[in-house]
C-alpha cells in the first residue's frame, strides 16, 4: 500500500536539511555498532550481468577491502517471499546489521514486512522514496540521478550519429525509464533538432532474446547509435558492435564489450555511497533515511569515452558534465512538447533535478518514436 510519492514540501524539506554531498532527512535510521560491521546485499539477478546487479556487486566489493567491515551477498533472489527469507537468513545466520535489498520490487511488501519484524536492523533500499509518514524509521532509501550521465550519452550520440536516428531499448514504460529516454533524446536534439530516438519496450527487465531482436530490427531500420535501459546492457551493446554501429552503455562500464563502437555510458558509482554508509555506521553517525545524488555527489558517473568519439563531441560532453557538477544544468526547461504535440513543460517553467514531479513522468518527449 505504500505510495512512493512524497509531497513536494516534504521532499524539498528533506533535500534542504543537508546541503552538501548526501542529502538527508529529518529522522535517522538506528544502527547497532558492535565489533565488525556486517552488511548484507541482495540482488535480483546475477552478480556478473554487466548491469544493474553487477553495479551493486562492485559497490559491495569495495567494502570487502575495509578491514572493519564485512559484506555478504546473495544473487538471483526473486521478489517473492524468498526475498524476505533471505533477509531473515542474513540477520539470523550471519548477524547482519544493515541490509541492502537492491531491487525495486523488494520494497513493498518484503522490506516493509521485515523492517516491522526486525526493528533493530537497518534496511536501505535502492530506488524507492522513503516517506516519514508511512514507512518505518529503520528503513531508508537511496538512488542516483542516473539520467544525468544518460544526458551526457545523448550529447555524444548526437554528435556521432550520421543517420540522425538513435535507438533505445527499454524494459518497461515506468517513470525512471521514461526519464532516461527523454534525457537521452533531449540531449541529442540539443545537438541537432533533426535527431529522433526510436524506442522499443521489451516488457521485461531481463529478456536477452527480445533485446537482441529489438536491437537487430532497429539496426535494420538504419539507426546508428543504440542504448538501453534493461537490467543487463550486454546483449544490446554486443549486438550493436556486431552490426558495426555505435552504442552507449548503461549501469556499468561495458566498453570491453564493444571496443570499436562504444561511445560512453551512464554508470552507477555505488562503491562511494556504500563506503560512506559503512563509515557513518562505524562512526556511530545517524544514517539519513533518504539519499539522492547525481554527478555532483559522485553517486553516478560517465564511462570513459570510446576511441571513436571525436574531440568536438568530447568537449561538448565535458562541458555538460561541468554544468551538472556546478548545478547550472536544467534539463526540463520549457517549452518542452511531448511526442503527441502536447506542451508538457510550459515556456518559462523549469523543473530542477530534485523535483518530485519528474518522478511520475508518463510521457515521451518530442522526437521519440514510440508510445508509452
Amino acid at each position, binding site marked *: *500500500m505504500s505510495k*512512493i510519492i512524497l509531497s513536494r514540501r516534504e521532499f524539498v524539506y528533506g533535500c534542504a536539511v543537508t546541503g552538501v554531498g548526501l542529502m538527508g532527512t529529518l529522522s535517522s535510521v538506528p544502527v547497532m555498532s558492535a565489533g565488525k560491521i556486517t552488511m548484507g546485499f541482495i540482488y535480483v539477478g546475477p552478480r556478473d550481468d554487466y548491469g544493474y546487479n553487477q553495479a551493486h556487486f562492485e559497490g559491495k566489493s569495495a567494502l570487502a577491502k575495509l578491514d572493519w567491515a564485512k559484506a555478504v551477498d*546473495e*544473487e538471483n533472489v*526473486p521478489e517473492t*517471499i524468498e526475498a524476505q527469507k533471505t533477509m*531473515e537468513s542474513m540477520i539470523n*545466520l550471519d548477524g547482519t546489521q544493515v541490509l541492502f535489498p537492491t531491487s525495486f*520490487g523488494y520494497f513493498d511488501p518484503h522490506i516493509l514486512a521485515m523492517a516491522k519484524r526486525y526493528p533493530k536492523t537497518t534496511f536501505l533500499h535502492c530506488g524507492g522514496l522513503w516517506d516519514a509518514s508511512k514507512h518505518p524509521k529503520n528503513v531508508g532509501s537511496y538512488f542516483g540521478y542516473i539520467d544525468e550521465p544518460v544526458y551526457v550519452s545523448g550529447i555524444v550520440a548526437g554528435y556521432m550519429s550520421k543517420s540522425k536516428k538513435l535507438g533505445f531499448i527499454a524494459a518497461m514504460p515506468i517513470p525512471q525509464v521514461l526519464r532516461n529516454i527523454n534525457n537521452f533524446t533531449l540531449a541529442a536534439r540539443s545537438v541537432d533538432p533533426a535527431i529522433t530516438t526510436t524506442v522499443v519496450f521489451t516488457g521485461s527487465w531481463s529478456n536477452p532474446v527480445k533485446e537482441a531482436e529489438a536491437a537487430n530490427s532497429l539496426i535494420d531500420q538504419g539507426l546508428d547509435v543504440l542504448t538501453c535501459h534493461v537490467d543487463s546492457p550486454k546483449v544490446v551493446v554486443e549486438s550493436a558492435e556486431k552490426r558495426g554501429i555505435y552504442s552507449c552503455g548503461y549501469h556499468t562500464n561495458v566498453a570491453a564489450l564493444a571496443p570499436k563502437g562504444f561511445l560512453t555510458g551512464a554508470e552507477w558509482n555505488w562503491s562511494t555511497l556504500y563506503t560512506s554508509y559503512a563509515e557513518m555506521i562505524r562512526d556511530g553517525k545517524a544514517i539519513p533515511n533518504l539519499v539522492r545524488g547525481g554527478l555532483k555527489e559522485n553517486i553516478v558517473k560517465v564511462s570513459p569515452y570510446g576511441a571513436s568519439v571525436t574531440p568536438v563531441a568530447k568537449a561538448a560532453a565535458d562541458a555538460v558534465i561541468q554544468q551538472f557538477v556546478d548545478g547550472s544544468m536544467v534539463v526540463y526547461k520549457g517549452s518542452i512538447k511531448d511526442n503527441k504535440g502536447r506542451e508538457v513543460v510550459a515556456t518559462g517553467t523549469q523543473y530542477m533535478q530534485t523535483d518530485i514531479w519528474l518522478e511520475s513522468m508518463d510521457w515521451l518527449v518530442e522526437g521519440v518514436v514510440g508510445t508509452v
Partner: protein
Amino acid sequence: MLNLRETWFISLSALAVAFVLVGIFFASTGNSAMEVFYSLYRGAFGSWFSWQNTLVRAAPLMLTALCTVIPARVGLIVIGGEGAMVVGGLCAALVGLALAPTSPMIVIAGMALAGALSAGLWIAAVGALKYFRNVNETISSLLLNYIAIAILNFLVVGVLKDPATLNNPSTHAIGEINMIGNMGSSTVHWGLAYGFLVCVGLWILCRHSVFGFAADVVGGNLRAARLAGLPVAKTLLWCCFLGGAAAGLAGMLEIAAIHGRANNSLNAGYGYAGILVAFLARQNPLAVIPYAVLLGGIQASGGLLQRVHELPDAAVYVIQGIIFMVILSSELFYGKFKWLQGKLDQGKT
C-alpha cells in the same frame, strides 16, 4: 500398480547416488564436501528458523507440482503451471478487490474460488485442445505460459494499474485485513496447509476413487478405456482442470498471503520448479509433499552456499539438476529386481 517396497528402495538409493554426485561437485569447486553438506543441512533443516524458511518455499511448489501430476494420471505431460499460477493469481486479485468491502472470510473464499476456477479452465483448455484437436499438450501448455504472463503485464501496466505504484506497476491492494496470516507464531503462512491438504485430497481421489481408477486406465491405455465404456473426454478434462486449479490456488496464495496485489512477481518460476517436483514424485500427489520440502530446503540453503562458500547461485541448479537426472534414470530399474517384488505384487508393476 505401485509397489511400496520397491518405490522406497529405488527412490532412496537414487537420492543416495545423487548426493554422492553432488558431493563430488562440491569437492570440484574447491570446497570440502562435508562442510558444504553441513551448510545445506544448516540452511534447510538445521534450526526452527531454517525449517520455516524451507516450508514457506515448499508451499507453492506443492500446488504447482500438482498441475503436472494430475494431468499425468491420464497420460498428459502438462508444463503450464507457471501460466496457470499467473492466471489464478490475477483473477484472485481481481475478485479480492471486488469483494474487499465485504468480510475477510468472503474475500478469501472468493479469491480461492476465482483462482482455482480460472486456472482450472486455463489448463482444461489444454486438455480440450489435445482431445478434440490433437494439439500437443506439452507445447500448448508451455505457450500458454507466455500468453498468461503477457496478459498479466498488459493489464497491470494498463487498466488495472494502481497509479501509486509508479516504478513497480501493480494492481490496487486487497487490504491488510483481507490477507491470510501466518500459522500460529511461526513465519510460515497458511498456504502450506492449503498445499498439504490439496496434495492429500487429490491423492485420495487418485488412489481411492472410481474417478482416480478411471484416470489411471485412460492414462494406461486410451483405447481400452474407451472399450470399457469409460467417459474418456470427461476424465481427461477434469484431470486437467484439477491440476490447473491447484496451480491457480498457488497464485491466489501468493496474492492473499504475501503480496496483497498482483504484479510481475507472480511470474517467479514456481510453475517451472513444480514440474521438477512432479517428476521427482513420479506423478504421485502424496510424494509431492516430501519432494517439495526437499526442493524448498535446497533453495533455502542456497543463500548459505553463496554467503559461506562463495558458490554462485547456479550451484543450486546444479544440485537440482543432478537429483532430477538421477531420479529420472532410476525409473529404468523398476521391475528389474526380483527380490524387491512382493508376492502379492508379482507381475503387477
